[in-house]
């Protein structure tokens, strides 16, 4: 029988713990104390990390160029993965630890402005010779709030392009170009769908995410509808919007199952493995498709016969934070990044500067003219400081519609909620 002699301490654990403690404290002191090196100015720049590309390498090169042109300013780039970007920015701002410059999603811009977290850039832009005409309208509009310019458009994209797997289309005897009309799409969808074989026509998705909203908005815009009308009242329960929702719901049988928890990324996986005839993505998707062996092409969205498809604007703007102690240097950096000769190199969405965009699209994307047209034609979301709440309501609308609710009733509920936001 084993006996534990009194006097021995708690076995193996406590001495191990003691050693671990000592070792880690030592290591922590050595490694944890990252002392800030004293330079003239070091800018903290945060950017969204796009995992699709090896963008950070271009960013590093751009930073080197900037530092060469601006001796005395160093830039510390932190790329933040998208899932945590919003949270990190918010925590940093609320905690008094904001960076000097960062990109912000268009949909957060107004909230940051209203909260007083960022500084207006109108005067600086004017003296730098930046004008509205140099940028895509939707991007410029998103950077304006209450008559002032709060950010400089950095990159843009448009939802959506309907990427087609032409091999599947030919096998089904359907002309890919025919699906650009609602009528054509409705006719083609059944031919492209064979659920028993796991083949679907179109990748619809409605999870809780912004991609759900931009796709739904595009359907609505393409039918001449709006989210908010000219007076700022909800227009989702008006005929054009409701008809668009009804049409969207009619496509459900031709989409993979599980729409209400599907994300655009899920649809991409299905497109890549040949199960999906069409996926709905912005221009950003092209590099991914270029790496595959798929016979792919795209149409610029869907609209009823006689109307032009209208996409939804998306993108990022550059802002300077009020807490920044180096606002002049920060401005120089923004000016640099948005220069036509630089903009194209530091983004993997499309440059917001129209000149740079043209070059970028010519170099990197298929059908650049079609993309430009879709961009020029696109409409912005109803951006406001409370847009995120509107977005949440719109997701609920999409989910209600896809789970079989009558679109008119669902839209009425959504409008009630949205209009209530305007009068708190």
């Amino acid at each position, binding site marked *: 029988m084993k006996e534990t002699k009194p006097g021995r301490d*708690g076995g193996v654990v406590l001495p191990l*713990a003691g050693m*671990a403690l000592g070792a880690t404290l030592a290591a922590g002191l050595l490694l944890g104390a990252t002392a800030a090196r004293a330079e003239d100015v070091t800018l903290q720049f945060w950017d969204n990390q796009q*995992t699709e590309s090896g963008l950070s390498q271009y960013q590093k090169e751009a930073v080197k160029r900037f530092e060469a042109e601006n001796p005395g300013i160093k830039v510390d780039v932190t790329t933040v*993965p998208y899932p945590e970007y919003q949270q990190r920015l918010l925590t940093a701002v609320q905690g008094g630890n904001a960076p000097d410059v960062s990109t912000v999603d268009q949909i957060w811009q107004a909230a940051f402005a209203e909260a007083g977290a960022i500084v207006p850039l109108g005067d600086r832009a004017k003296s730098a010779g930046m004008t509205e005409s140099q940028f895509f309208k939707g991007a410029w509009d998103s950077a304006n709030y209450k008559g002032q310019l709060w950010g400089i458009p950095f990159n843009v994209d448009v939802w959506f392009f309907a990427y087609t797997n032409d091999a599947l289309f030919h096998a089904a005897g359907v002309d890919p170009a025919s699906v650009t009309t609602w009528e054509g799409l409705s006719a083609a969808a059944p031919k492209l769908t064979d659920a028993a074989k796991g083949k679907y026509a179109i990748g619809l998705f409605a999870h809780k995410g912004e991609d759900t909203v931009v796709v739904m908005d595009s359907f609505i815009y393409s039918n001449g509808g709006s989210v908010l009308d000219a007076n700022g009242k909800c227009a989702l329960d008006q005929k054009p919007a409701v008809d668009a929702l009804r049409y969207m719901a009619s496509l459900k049988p031709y989409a993979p199952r599980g729409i209400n928890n599907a994300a655009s990324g899920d649809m991409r996986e299905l497109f890549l493995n040949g199960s999906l005839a069409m996926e709905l993505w912005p221009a950003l998707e092209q590099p991914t498709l270029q790496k595959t062996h798929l016979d792919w092409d795209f149409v610029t969205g869907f609209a009823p016969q006689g109307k032009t498809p209208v996409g939804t604007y998306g993108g990022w703007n550059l802002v300077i934070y009020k807490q920044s102690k180096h606002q002049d240097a920060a401005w120089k950096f923004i000016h640099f990044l948005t220069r036509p000769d630089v903009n194209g190199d530091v983004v993997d969405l499309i440059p917001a500067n129209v000149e740079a965009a043209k070059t970028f699209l010519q170099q990197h994307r298929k059908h650049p003219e079609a993309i430009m047209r879709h961009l020029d034609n696109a409409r912005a979301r109803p951006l406001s400081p409370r847009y995120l709440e509107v977005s949440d309501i719109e997701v609920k609308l999409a989910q209600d519609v896809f789970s079989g609710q009558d679109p008119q009733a669902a839209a009425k509920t959504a409008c009630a909620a949205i209009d209530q936001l305007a009068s708190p």
Partner: protein
Amino acid sequence: MRRGPARRIAVLLGQIALAVVILLPFFWMLSVSLKPATEPFAIPARLWPVHPTLANYASAFRPEFRRYFLNSIVVSAATLAITLTLGLLAAYSFTRLQMRILNVFLVAVLAAQLFPSSAIIIPIYRMVKAAGLLNTYAALIIAYITVTLPVAIWMLRGFLANLPRTLEEAAAIDGAGPLRAFFAVVVPLCRPGIVATGVFVLIVTWQEFLFALSFTSTREMRTLPVGMNDYIGQYGIRYGELMASSVMVSVPVILVFFFLQRQFVAGLTAGSVKG
């Protein structure tokens, strides 16, 4: 205790069946980690890729990953050491001292566990910033001690409460003060419980995400769970590398536990020798 061989075989078979069922997701994870990025997912799901490759592992084992790993180890080990020590001491006070005020504190300490992290993270962030500890190991260690200590105390208390007081009293007869009696006699007997608590603390801190995310800004200070986000983009996930990374993260912890789990069965082996 000897049992018939038939029973032993039955138990073994049961264990194997259990392992297969539980580990099925892991086979999947392994399979995805070996799938080249150019090979799309198959329908129906394929448990083994057509052209398995180690490319994902190579890519996932980048310098940042090694740094994240180091950070996680440092923070977890420090938290483990301090929480176990403080927890044992506190559990001792709470179980052996009959003071009403301590009971109140005991409940209050556990009640803190009820607070949702998202609700208190920003005030804690401000405090950490005010203390100049943002983006340091110290911030994370302190935060992790705070969130694991209540549960550790309660777990240890549960294990300690299982042991009769007579042991300490017997030791007291031998002339030891109650404190010495506690550490000399009771704690060794409580080894399985202490190891269990240690495992809990280790794993909770190994996986913790919210505080690690909030308190670290530079890449150098991020821990592994936060580092996983590198593979999650706005619209897509790099499954291959994410799974490879996860395999590399899980295996060391399993190895550590493999060496520790012998501590659980101290009672088992004693009993069998006696039989």
